[in-house]
């Protein structure tokens, strides 16, 4: 049986030692100027965001542009956005692992890290969007109390959110850390000073690289992948319930769970592409994060983007088919109305049209195109949430209560701040942890002898 020659997953004919050296280099050398510039910018942006949040907590939720009837705005939009971003990491690390997609090895570590950081960014918003964050920080959790006892309202999708997102964060963190253990041990073993040795030593949990250890590790990793897999589907489904359970036309629809999951993976992959294009350039990882990887991810972007486009069309069809005048009205308003047509058009352009060139290999392998497209996709996905959250609320049942929502300067500052937090964390990660899974990559290095085992 003849078959096409597969592209190697790691280029440049690396040896095991070279892999270790390449991945560990950023950790063991003094950071570059580029890193410092990036880190300063990101952390300043983060601090700016946090000071704005502090200002809001001191003065009032009204700093945001939210109003009656649009009581949710930037904060919920951005929450959904970041949760969505996180999905690519879990998908790459868990589902692709279970499907034995070996090409994931080059990118899974950074994708997982991205998940963790995205969920951290996301987690801030539900808390600060409440009117009294000092209470919602714990009143949203069911804790034993003497007030009756007074539990949370288990019928409320916001409570489901709390469970879904906290579970997701926990599992993602454990999964990521488990994968990191052998690599941290490698870093530990290479450490030249006492301090480094101690810290990585503690983090490595006594990993010695024995066959027994590897065998337990593999089983554990497999189980965790199994646990994480349903989360890819469940988290964003639950997030979509925040809207689908609502009575508001434009929210109250059963298409939301799959539509949200597709959108989440779509935006997540776009974010991975954005980050990896930068990372492979800055940290010299082109041999590990190859064109093949990027090509594959662009295929996923194309597929999920088209799924999302299909969902937009389906929504419209169902709005007409349902015969519900309110739903028909809101969809016509989105596309042709005078409230937020610009947002809808931005969403369609970025999410449906921009990924279309990825049908062609040339586009899939053009760094500039994919970088631009991935950023537009993320803009588009933010606007998708904007369209869902804002347009539906702005024009609901009683025309008397309709109102135009506008982002306040505070909103924009905090949105920017969340990117600052995300990039700060990501840059720290690049600096202190192996960005490519050393152990896994070694398993997929093309060697003359098929089936070489871990080194």
């Amino acid at each position, binding site marked *: 049986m003849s078959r096409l020659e597969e592209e190697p997953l790691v280029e440049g004919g690396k040896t095991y030692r070279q892999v270790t050296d390449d991945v560990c280099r950023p950790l063991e050398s003094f950071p570059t100027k580029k890193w410092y510039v990036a880190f300063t910018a990101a952390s300043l942006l983060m601090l700016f965001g946090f000071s704005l949040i502090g200002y809001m907590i001191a003065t*009032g939720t009204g700093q945001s542009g*939210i109003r009656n009837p649009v009581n949710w705005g930037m904060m919920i939009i951005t929450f959904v956005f970041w949760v969505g971003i996180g999905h690519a990491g879990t998908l790459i690390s868990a589902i692709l692992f279970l499907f034995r997609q070996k090409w994931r090895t080059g990118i899974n570590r950074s994708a997982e890290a991205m998940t963790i950081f995205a969920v951290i960014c996301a987690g801030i918003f539900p808390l600060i969007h409440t009117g009294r964050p000092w209470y919602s920080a714990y009143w949203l959790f069911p804790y034993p109390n003497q007030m009756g006892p007074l539990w*949370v*309202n288990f019928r409320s999708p916001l409570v489901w959110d709390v469970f879904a997102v906290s579970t997701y964060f926990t599992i993602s963190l454990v999964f990521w850390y488990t994968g990191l253990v052998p690599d941290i041990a490698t870093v530990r073993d290479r450490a030249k000073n006492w301090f480094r040795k101690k810290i990585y030593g503690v983090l490595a949990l006594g990993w010695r690289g024995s066959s027994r250890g590897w065998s337990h590790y593999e089983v554990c990793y497999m189980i965790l992948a199994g646990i994480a897999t349903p989360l890819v589907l469940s988290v964003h489904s639950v997030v979509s319930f925040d809207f689908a359970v609502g*009575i508001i036309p434009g929210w109250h629809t059963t298409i939301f769970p799959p539509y949200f999951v597709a959108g989440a993976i779509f935006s997540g992959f776009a974010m991975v592409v954005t980050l990896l294009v930068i990372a492979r350039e800055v940290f010299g990882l082109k041999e590990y994060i190859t064109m093949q990887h990027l090509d594959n991810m662009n295929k996923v972007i194309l597929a999920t983007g088209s799924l999302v486009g299909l969902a937009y069309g389906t929504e419209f069809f169902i709005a007409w088919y349902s015969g519900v005048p309110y739903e028909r009205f809101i969809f016509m308003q989105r596309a042709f109305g005078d409230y937020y047509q610009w947002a809808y058009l931005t969403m369609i352009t970025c999410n449906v049209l921009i990924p279309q060139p990825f049908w062609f290999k040339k586009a899939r392998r053009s760094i500039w195109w994919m970088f631009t497209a991935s950023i537009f996709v993320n803009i588009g996905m933010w606007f998708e949430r904007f369209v869902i959250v804002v347009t539906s609320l702005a024009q609901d049942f009683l025309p008397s209560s*309709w109102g135009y929502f506008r982002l306040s300067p505070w909103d924009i500052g905090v949105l920017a701040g969340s990117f600052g937090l995300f990039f700060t964390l990501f840059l720290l990660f690049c600096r202190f942890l192996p960005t490519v899974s050393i152990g896994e990559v070694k398993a997929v290095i093309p060697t003359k002898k098929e089936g070489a085992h871990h080194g």
Partner: protein
Amino acid sequence: MNAAEEEIKELRKRQEKILTQSDRKMWSAVEEHGESPELRNQARAKEFVELLKDADGRPVAELNTGVSRRDFFKWVSAAGALMTSSACTRRPKDLLIPFVNKPEGYTYGAPVWYASTSPSGLGVLVKTREGRPIKLEGNPDHPQSKGGLNAQTQAEILNLYNPERLQAPLDQSGKKISWSNADETIKSALAAAPAGSVRLLSGDFTSPSLASAIRNFSDRYKAQHTVLSSLPYIHLARANEMIGGSRGIPEFDFTKADVVLSVDCDFLGSWLRPVEFTKAFSSRRNLHRENKDVNRLFCFESMLSTTGTSSDARYSIKPSQQLDVLLAVASELSKVLRFDPSFQEILSSYSSDKVGAAVGIAPEVFQEVAMALAEARGKSLVVAGGFGPQALEAQLACMAINVVLGNIGSTVNTGRHLVSYEQSEVRFQELIQDAMNAQVSVLIIRESDAAYTRANSDFAKACRKIPLIVYLGRETNDTSKLAHLVLPESHFLEAWGDSEAYSGIVSIQQPAIQPIFDSRSFLECLLVWMGSDQTKAKDYVQRHSGVGTAWEKTLRDGFVQRSQAALNFSPRWSAAAAAIAAAPKSGNAMELVSYASIQMGDGSFANNAWLMEMPDPISKVTWDNFAALSPATAKKLGIRERKPSDDCVDQIEIKSGASRIKLPVFLIPGLRDDVVGVALGYGRREAGSIGSGVGANAFALGRQAATGELQLSGQEVEVVKIGEKHLLACTQRHFDIHGRDNDILQRTTLAEFLKDPKAAKKIEFEGESMYEKFHYPGHRWGMSIDLNKCTGCHACVISCQSENNVPVVGKDQVSRGRYMGWLRLDLYHWGEPDNLEASSFEPMLCQQCESAPCETVCPVLATVHSSDGLNDMVYNRCVGTRYCANNCPYKVRHFNFFQYSDALAGKVNVDAASPLAMMLNPDVTVRTRGVMEKCTFCVQRIRKGVDVFKAKGESKVEDGAIKTACQQSCPADAISFGDINDPNSDVSRMAAKAQSFKVLEVLNTNPSVSYLPRVYNKGASS
């Protein structure tokens, strides 16, 4: 035996050993003394060692930590004591002053009610808590207002506690002086004044004792009293004088009127006595299947008013066309009824064809109006209002038509008249002239803002020539700035007084609180200046109000009725006909329509934050007046239609003669293309931190008509767009119902309704649910609102604000969609902007749904269903996710985006140092920031009401015993409230009517609020 038990045994042994070995004679009770030590020790051992047992009853080992339980508690208490002592600071000084001697019959926490009277003569009940008035309600026994109240009177509570009131007499430099100083200055000036040089200037008032005190004062100091009514209603009295022969405005009895024709007369909103008129008018809007007795209102108006929106047919005119319209109707009437020959002659040139062509209204309309009026002879009423160029002539025409229709004695009741001391504007001009000629030595001004309402007169200039100007008022204004002495006047809730709005009905103004500041009423001032004592005011009122002997009963009731002479009415036509023939004709120019808005009136309430933030009923604009233009005119001026995203609008300049004002444009449907409408009462310069500089002063465009009276409307104006933008804060931006009538606001015509009461329903909805119905074992509170009665007067809105401590958020926050009013009056229009078919208000408040969308989504159970059908808000549990507000299809939930309750509009602090804190209703939580709030059906009233009946041992509350704040104030009686579990309650009977509907019934929320549809009486033909 387990280790624990063993250890405890060991412990006990040791303890016994210690106790028995001790040779001290210990006894802790007298009984123990003399007992054998053994017994005693046994008892002790038992006393202090108690074995902890686990679930199975086995003893559990006490922790052997080396620290005994006693020691532990010693240390804990010592540490606690230390901590508390270190946290101790000096307690801040509080001023809690209890009654030294508790008044008899007083219970702490229970409200005490007093009957009193508002300055405009509305009967009020003052609710006081711990000695401070917190709420005004209509006095249901009052023969005229019958429990109704308007928004302005509701807002008097805020005026009472306003920290910006004058707090002590001030001299010209603004320095505080004592009353005795001020009195001395005034008395010596009065004594030194040459005869006839003392002048009093006041606004119109209704108090007979004040009138008599002014007479006494004038006699004593040879003073002249000038009454200047800021809004001229003098034409009514003059017209009556010219035709009927006696001065006085007859009572208009809308209860008897089957057909009403209103020409520019906003009698349901701002004209004369809107509360009484609304009460009477709405009593004729009860719809039953058999009831064909519903009144019919034709409205010709130049601005869109609440009367226009309540009308059955409305036509647009401009102010100078009032007379044309009335005469066209009269000329149609003259085909069937006999007018006086002198009139008949005039009418020949006002045929409906001719007028119709000039006015742009089909001649058939006049025929229809005339037919309807003629059919209802003796049971019809024609009224005209406005401040136009033909104000007098229009009144004469009205009177003539009413006479011909035989309405005198029925709907125009000459047996009772409106008491007014208003004088002709000419008297005011004389005052100015005299001052200019230095013939005025002392001018005492009482609460008249002549410098503002007569901004383009020479009043301010003349004042400079007067040696002593004394201003008495509650707050500073443009006029007080001209005064040499500024004296603080008591609020009507602080002083004795009376009111006789309608002849023969004297209401007593009983104070409900000691003056909060160092103030006096006008009556008290006059008494003091006449050498009497201010404490004599009560006696004076008692003597001069004509109450007679039944003083205490009158105080309790709030009013007394006495017989009085009927107005003499014998029609004389010639003068009237001559006047009408000489009336100014309407032109083709752009005309100004100045009108008194419901919230601002003549501007005396400009510093009242509740009223400033009250949405204008028609435009829903807050904190501003505006230039109302028709969309076509705006387009012609190059003004773009306002997009949803536009917060700011274009401004225009309105020029009349030498005066000009600048105003933002607001498009109002149903206006003629050649009018521009502007509300009066805005643009005050010295109105405190709330009212200063808000909007523009339309009084400045007024002019003196040929008759010498003030003309505010109908003058020719020039309108130009200027390049500036202005922020307009509106609470409603969309007035088109988008074809959702069946779900939101059902309406039909009377003819259709009589055929089928369900005519307004286009689709019937039968709700099905997967869930079991909620079970309400006792009461289930519900409300029914009759859209046919609601006029949009907003009395309920301010009543709710007062009752429920609803905060004022300020213009900026309103423009950001954060208005907090729990109850709003949605307004919808049908038809095209240039051809307004119909309008209707719809009060929208929490619908207290049975399947409430808000309840399921709250993550912390801060909004929950009560067993009597309320959606309870648990404010201190709310964390503010705002999910409930999103999921509420009626959008009646309001979120505290900031700490709104701390200040009025962010400008006037409401804290312990401010008297405003005393205004708050102690029964209602003041909400903090980050918390959602909404209408609770006045749950505090429900709970109190239920308690009263429980205390009596009854299980059910009597129907009507509990009234919500909105319901109580509604002058139209549009709101019914009660137990919908009780089929015989008023609200159940309303809800059970075939035409009753619920808003958004299709969502299956099953609200507890039902509505009765708007039914337009288009006559039997349509």
